[in-house]
């Protein structure tokens, strides 16, 4: 890069790239935050579900010849597949372990990270896959001399939609209200005759659905590989922690911090871009150890 080569346009472009990355990070970490806040399960397998979402999206979209319609179908189907997997996981195994301590639950879900990792390798092989964005959002438009991918714009629209949907779900629906009550005092909710176990299952499935949705949305933007589960889960956990455990808006704020520092880091010092978001997280945690917004617990 030339000296002083960071132009305003390049900066603007990176900010937009960072914001579209924020969208993915927000969708994934809001699901994680929901599960952590209500069920108090640090679900390490969340990243694996994201990866499965991406691979299923690839397969479904490829089945329809990577057409726009195929991608839309994939976008609808893949998160549902992930949700179905998570339902089996929750009802079959996790629901028996709610009284264990966090460390056990963390290791238990890590076990599924290991299992899912190898299952993905068995089904899709070790090679990376790539999926092109559907024609409708392909290519880019001009942004002050820099190309801005249309797909990123699509993501920028999706993010607020998901946030709004999640807000409506937790604040305006009965299940959302019960879930929030159960997050604060599970025994009380149980005592007034509500089957908390079912509510927990629903929340878990919704959280995992978001992981799948994140995976589906990220599929056309990067190589779909083994190992994408390990990267996203650490990022998502850090976002949830700096935002405030269980706080959806905190997840949005955390995702923005992570996405933007990453994007701007690429501009400033490409080789160590990866260091920027982690440093940002450390600084936030040193100033506010319990996260920026109010944590549920």
């Amino acid at each position: 890069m030339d000296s002083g080569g960071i132009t305003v346009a390049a900066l603007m472009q990176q900010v937009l790239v960072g914001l579209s990355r924020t969208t993915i990070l927000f969708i994934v970490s809001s699901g994680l935050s929901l599960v952590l806040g209500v069920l108090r399960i640090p679900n390490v397998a969340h990243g694996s579900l994201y990866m499965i979402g991406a691979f299923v999206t690839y397969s479904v979209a490829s089945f329809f010849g990577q057409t726009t319609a195929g991608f839309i179908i994939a976008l609808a189907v893949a998160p549902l597949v992930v949700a179905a997997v998570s339902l089996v996981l929750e009802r079959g195994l996790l629901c028996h372990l709610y009284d264990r301590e966090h460390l056990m639950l963390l290791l238990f879900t890590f076990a599924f990270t290991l299992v899912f990792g190898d299952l993905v390798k068995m089904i899709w092989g070790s090679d990376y896959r790539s999926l092109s964005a559907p024609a409708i959002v392909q290519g880019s438009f001009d942004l002050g001399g820099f190309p801005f991918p249309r797909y990123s714009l699509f993501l920028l629209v999706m993010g607020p939609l998901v946030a709004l949907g999640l807000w409506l779900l937790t604040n305006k629906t009965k299940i959302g209200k019960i879930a929030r009550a159960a997050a604060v005092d599970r025994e009380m909710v149980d005592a007034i005759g509500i089957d908390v176990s079912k509510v927990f299952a629903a929340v878990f499935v919704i959280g995992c659905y978001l992981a799948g949705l994140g995976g589906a949305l990220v599929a056309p933007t990067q190589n779909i590989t083994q190992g994408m589960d390990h990267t996203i889960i650490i990022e998502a956990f850090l976002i949830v922690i700096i935002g405030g455990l269980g706080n959806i808006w905190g997840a949005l704020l955390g995702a923005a911090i992570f996405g933007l520092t990453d994007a701007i880091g690429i501009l400033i010092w490409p080789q160590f871009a990866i260091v920027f978001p982690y440093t940002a997280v450390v600084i936030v945690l040193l100033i506010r150890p319990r996260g920026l917004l109010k944590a549920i617990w």
Partner: protein
Amino acid sequence: MKAQSAGIRKTGAAAGALTGFLLLALVLPRFYLYLLSLILATGLLATSLNLVLGFGGMYQFHHSVFYGVGAYCLALILTRSGLPAWIGYLAAPLAASVLGLVMGLLTVRLSKLYFGMLQISLGSLVWAIVYRWYSFTGGDDGIHGIPVPELIGTSTGAYVFAVLVTAASLAVMYCIVSSPFGMTFAGIRDNPERCRAVGIDVTAHQLAGQVLAAFFAGVAGTLFVTVEGSVFPDMMFWTLSLEILIMCLLGGWFTFFGPMLGAAIIVMLRTVVGIYTEYWTLVLGLVLILLIFFLPEGVLGILQKGRQAGGKDAAGN
């Protein structure tokens, strides 16, 4: 009197075990010596984790970063400096404990899960730097063909070195857990509020625990370099940290030798399973699921419990 004889018996058993392990160097073929050395290095790492996890009750989520820093410190001194090798072997655990001190200063004031998460973020920061700094650390390739001193460069030499270092480290760690410091540390695990109320400096104890655990993780890192002759950034990736957590869980994290046993089981299982299938992590995942459902106290934990129950029955009769 009784305690004294038990102490003598323990020392005798330890000396016997040490002699036995050293004699194995004469009879075992190279591959088994290599495997045993790897078990010792991994077991030492798991035991050092358990120092803060099992005995201190701290959510040490990213312990492998100290292991990695120790290993990289030795590897860099051996490959990039003209310094004598022994300086590297001394500097590595010290570098790990300095990192333990710095990370500890930032993290110990936080409560359990937050402590663990800040540790993961700091550890990931270290990992990211090592992973990206190609010109210094070799980036994601790591460093290979590290010139280990000739005496301990052969498989037998490395094995004897691993046995001696592990034995010395275990002895020191055993003394630490049975010392007044270790007792206080365990007291903090069981009831931090009460310990604080009777005037124990909880933060200082936890910080000391961090430094000690990091030191021995660094020692384990030097063993790995000696045995493998290479380092790579995966050594400080968070997945390895969780794998050694599994070893502690498997062996039993309220016991001293549990993590060593857990490490032995996992390393051997990986070697055996690796012969038949490439899907080792699937097997590990299934083992972990069964473990959490049926054996949450670990192998040694269950054995100890059984023995205590048996002892009580005998006393009752």
